[in-house]
């Protein structure tokens, strides 16, 4: 990407009032993009943490501002909350001498498939994908987003590549249930990748309990250590459990890709 020293990038995340790991990936992607020196400024804003979306325009000096939602899919936040809080009128908003360029959420980009594959390969190094079932876990039954749809789309793409012997989308709260992972899979190796933007209760506690690798939510399960005990031999399989795809450092690249995509879709702009 050509440097944009006169533009600012604002990454919008959900954040949390209880869990610091919710905003960590957004901050880490921002830090890595600052080091690349591509923008005049790179900042993060959140719905439930500081700095807030309402403070976004006070953070940056630049008049040309790209806004990229660090969300796994389109949905209530990208369509309702972010536009309202940032007072956006569409993909392009001109206000008080500033141009706000509202990009697509990171999870919508087609490179998400590559990131899921990368995360799956990292967690099970040297394991033959042709003897492996890959499970992508989404939330499901969440009226706030289309993450279930997005997870199924990714699974279709990965399946079409033929890399893994079996690929399935599974959910915490709807069929096919991740809790039935051993019944759903056909291969000796099972790789589970949470389709979430950050680690938190779901990836630390809920999914490990559903997988049966933790009995009950415990203090230990709330730590990142839950990802370190790979592989686990259980239910006659070898199970590999990855951390949320959004913690993958390459996510920063996809943020840039969404900016390039915005510029391509709006070529008349400076």
């Amino acid at each position: 990407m050509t440097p944009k020293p006169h533009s600012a990038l604002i990454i919008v995340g959900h954040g949390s009032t209880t869990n610091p790991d919710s905003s960590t990936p957004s901050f880490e992607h921002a830090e890595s993009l600052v080091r690349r020196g591509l923008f005049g400024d790179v900042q993060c804003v959140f719905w439930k943490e500081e700095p807030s979306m309402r403070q976004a325009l006070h953070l940056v000096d630049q008049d040309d501002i790209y806004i990229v939602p660090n969300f796994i899919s389109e949905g209530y936040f990208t369509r309702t909350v972010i536009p309202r809080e940032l007072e956006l009128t569409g993909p392009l908003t001109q206000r008080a001498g500033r141009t706000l360029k509202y990009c697509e959420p990171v999870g919508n980009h087609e490179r998400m498939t590559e990131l899921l594959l990368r995360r799956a390969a990292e967690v099970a190094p040297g394991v033959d994908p042709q003897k492996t079932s890959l499970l992508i876990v989404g939330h499901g039954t969440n009226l706030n987003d289309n993450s279930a749809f997005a997870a199924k789309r990714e699974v279709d793409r990965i399946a079409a590549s033929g890399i893994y012997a079996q690929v399935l989308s599974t959910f915490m709260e709807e069929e096919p249930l991740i809790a039935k992972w051993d019944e759903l899979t056909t291969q000796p190796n099972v790789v589970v990748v949470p389709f979430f933007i950050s680690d938190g209760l779901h990836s630390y506690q809920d999914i490990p309990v559903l997988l049966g690798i933790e009995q009950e939510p415990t203090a230990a399960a709330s730590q990142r250590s839950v990802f370190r005990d790979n592989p686990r031999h259980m239910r006659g399989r070898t199970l590999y459990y990855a951390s949320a795809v959004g913690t993958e450092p390459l996510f920063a690249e996809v943020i840039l890709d969404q900016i390039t995509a915005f510029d391509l879709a709006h070529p008349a702009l400076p």
Partner: protein
Amino acid sequence: MKRDLTQALARWISQGRRQIGEVLFLPTDHGFLVHHHLDSPSADLEPHTDPNAARRIAVADASGEFRPIKTTPNLRRGWLLKLPDITALRTALEALYPAMLGSFLSFERGELPGVHLRETVGRQSGMYAITKKVTDNQALAVIARNCNSEHGCLKAHLWQIDPTTPVSSLPASKTDPSIPQLPGSAPFLPLLCAEACNLLVAKFREEIKKTPYTPPPADAAPTAAPPHP
């Protein structure tokens, strides 16, 4: 005029401002020293030279509790940032007090209008739509509990309940950016709250949900359902 926050910070420093919230920032021959106002830079403090360390310092209080609001007066002590230049200082102060430098610059430029509470709750949707129903009395109590400068939040309010209803449950000094919310501060950069934060809005929701529902008197017109099941 074009915004330049780094230049504004340099100007504020040349005016003699040395404190923001619980943090002191001191110019030296080699850049800046930043530390908790109750610590002395000569003490045995954990040193950092990366301004991004400030974000990790501000994440949790001394007991390890996450700090969703960074202006809560519970910043942990025992660290010292040695920063080479004003750019690094800006990064560190922005991490310790997110959006506060920029808010003050906007305030100086007349670009930080306060948004009254009725407007903030009025635009909420989804699970927070219920906060439209917060009564003035409920709001005043929740604000006093969460925004008070003693242990809640060190920002000065630029907003009221509505244009004619002040937040009477907090002292008048809460709305004066020229008064330090932390007594005994050195010349300081004010922390400004232009409108109720999401955490406060969430507290309104909790308050409304826990208030028992009183059915309307028997002779009142029947209503469809309790407003908050």
